């Protein structure tokens, strides 16, 4: 229960390959800062549910496709 939650994401892939967006553009559309997108891509920050949903909506994918629990 106390184990640290490790979340993997395919944010960089969906942002660059599927949507062709810059970090700045994605951040602006999702309502966060570029630094947060960079931190998410690096895996140094886990987003709130609200932010995860907003990013998924901007990229046109489901949250499940974008984020997953590390085994």
């Amino acid at each position, binding site marked *: 229960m106390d184990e640290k939650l490790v979340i993997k994401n395919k944010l960089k892939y969906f942002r660059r390959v599927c949507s062709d967006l810059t970090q700045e553009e994605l951040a602006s559309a999702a*309502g*966060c*800062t570029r*630094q*947060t997108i*960079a*931190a998410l*891509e*690096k*895996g*140094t*920050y886990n*987003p*709130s549910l*609200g*932010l995860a949903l907003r990013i998924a909506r901007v990229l046109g994918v489901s949250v499940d496709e974008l984020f997953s629990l590390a085994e």
Partner: protein
Amino acid sequence: MSGKMKQNIFHFILWFIVAVVLVIVFSTEGTIAQWGDNRTKTVLVASLFLFGFSGDAILRIIFSKKRVPTDERDKYIQNKALAVGYVITLIYIFILAISIYTKYENNGMVPVAWIWFIAYSLVIIANLSVSAASVYQYWKSDLNG
């Protein structure tokens, strides 16, 4: 480097300057023993804090939300830094109070200047520890990966 990180760096530098001057004032010979009689030093320390809080207010205006956008990650880092700062401040006060007690245990009384020093340094340590913890969190976040 994000705007919030810059703000915390400037905030740390500002309160570090205040800390250095406070330590210099209090370590000058006779300050502790003659605190109540030395009007110049009490006014100097009060001015020092006016400088600290004014600088703080200016930083808040320069790095306001309108000029520097913030989001949930900034709030997360700020909350983490506040928790770290809280613990550091508690430990500092505990160690300082015990040290002063140990030093003056046989005298039966503590010079009032030490109470002023605890009060002033508490504010400084709280500010320094929170900004240092924020800078560390931002740095760690930027460094990994």
